[in-house]
């Protein structure tokens, strides 16, 4: 299913994540089937597709937050910079420090703005120059000017868009390698969404970003590569997700290889 052009482009770019025949099960039911997909360094890759197509499930494999769901099981190969992520010797706590995540609902801790950003640093023992790193992270998240005079107020008192940028600042404070974003703008208004999208383009300079989105315009605006997932019903009515195609965003939106992708991006279903 991996299109040829993607593999050609990949020659001169480093692959951060490589998934081969990756399947995810929740208990006895399969949620995602046989995904083979590469994530390239320094690029923004968007996962699009209808509800229940397994795009968030795949995202959660990358930082092993699927482990937190009882009964979740991952089969197949998934490597992070050549290392098997689901190897027994791999510590998920360390994986999550290197691979940050921003969630659908802004989820700042009920702590001050400063402590929210410093939290990751503190739990990871990076206690030098806390003030400096907090400021740098808030600047990178384009939030510093709005909060610099109220760092001691609660993070939860900010507006939704500010909270989401605070969560981004919190994620980049620990200097991750990759940032995973699970529909980061779905709870935000259009102006906040625009700011986050601009921010993503900025962050691309330093980080690899994988974003799950329901919003096709968003994918076409920010992503370098787009992967389209679809879902099909199994016997018994349960749905399983699978990867239809992945390519450059231009190609997926203007000239997709698969008819299902064409139907989806032209708004015929989903």
């Amino acid at each position: 299913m991996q299109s040829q052009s993607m593999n050609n482009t990949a020659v001169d770019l480093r692959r951060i994540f490589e998934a081969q025949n990756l399947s995810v099960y929740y208990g006895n039911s399969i949620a995602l089937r046989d995904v083979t997909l590469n994530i390239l360094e320094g690029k923004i890759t968007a996962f699009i597709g209808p509800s229940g197509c397994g795009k968030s499930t795949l995202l959660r494999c990358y930082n092993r937050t699927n482990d937190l769901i009882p009964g979740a099981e991952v089969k197949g190969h998934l490597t992070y910079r050549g290392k098997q992520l689901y190897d027994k010797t791999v510590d998920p706590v360390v994986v999550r420090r290197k691979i940050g995540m921003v969630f659908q609902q802004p989820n700042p801790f009920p702590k001050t703005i400063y402590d929210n950003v410093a939290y990751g640093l503190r739990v990871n023992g990076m206690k030098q120059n806390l003030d400096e790193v907090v400021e740098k992270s808030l600047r990178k998240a384009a939030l510093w000017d709005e909060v610099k005079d109220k760092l001691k107020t609660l993070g939860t008192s900010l507006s939704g868009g500010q909270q989401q940028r605070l969560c981004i600042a919190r994620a980049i404070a620990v200097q991750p390698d990759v940032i995973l974003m699970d529909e980061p703008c779905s709870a935000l208004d259009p102006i906040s969404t625009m700011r986050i999208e601009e921010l993503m383009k900025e962050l691309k300079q330093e980080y690899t970003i994988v974003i799950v989105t329901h919003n096709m315009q968003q994918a076409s605006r920010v992503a370098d590569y787009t992967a389209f997932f679809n879902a099909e019903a199994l016997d018994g009515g349960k749905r399983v997700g699978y990867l239809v195609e992945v390519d450059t965003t231009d190609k997926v939106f203007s000239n997709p290889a698969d008819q299902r992708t064409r139907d989806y991006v032209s708004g015929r279903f989903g």
Partner: protein
Amino acid sequence: MTLAEQSTGYQRSQGLEKRNSTARVLDVGFWGLTLLLAIGAGAVLIWVILQTADSAMPAIRAFGPGFIFGTTWNPVTNVYGVLPQIYGTLITSFIAVALAVPLGIGVAIFLTEGFAPKWVTTPIAFAIELIVAIPSVVLGIWGIFVLIPAIRPFFRFLNANFGWIPIFGGGTPRGNNLLLVGLVLAIMIVPVIISITRSTFEVLPRDMRTGSLALGATRWETILRVLIPAGLSGIISSVMLGLGRALGETMVSAMLVGNANRIDISWLQPGTTITALIASQFGEAGRTQVAALMYAGLVLMILSLVVNILAEVVIRRFQNVE
């Protein structure tokens, strides 16, 4: 707009006037009933306090505020003071809370944070709720016939080896003492702390946990640095409810505290509490002594009230955190 359209518009606005139906009467009646009940609940509280204060009046006149500093309880000479009782009440409640809080929070975390599968946690949670159903007189008699013989060696061990610490000092402990009462009170209040703390943790959003774990925090760091601070107001209110229960518990204190009218720094010596005093003396009290007992009851109510108000203040302060 045509005439026909106007007329349908007019028709639709008909029937908005107040109806004089039974539904309306019932509505107003129900409002009145709930108001009456609400006022009634408050009135009962005030009535009890006033009545107690009134019955205590002779003692209040005779002893004044000195009552709470007096250490004598002598029905023969009619000299009364409740300092030993206040001391015993506070110490036993303190011991109970100090034992029950870490235990309660620990169990609540175990039950909510996925340390064990549901088929393990559900029966445990159910059993804990059932502790509340044990009548305190049963706990008292269990304390006398089961707990004291079982725990006496431990008390003696504490006394023999750690007697240099004043709270474990004094003569060889016989069994009835402040620590024992604190222990049994802890058993009584731990279910309250567990169930309220548990429901506090259960309503914390899952994203809060995942958010912390996704930053590379371990499960313990997540619990200690995010969940407990986030649930602090719930935890504090559970502690305050437990404390209120410990302060007012009567049967356990009366049966196990030893009823010795003295202030001893040692927790391994018998003492007394306000509730134990009232329960043990009420039956054979003369008129003046009844007034003194009522006064003691009033002191206990004020003590509980102060604790509750304090709790309210503390909870309001920490609520801002959530």
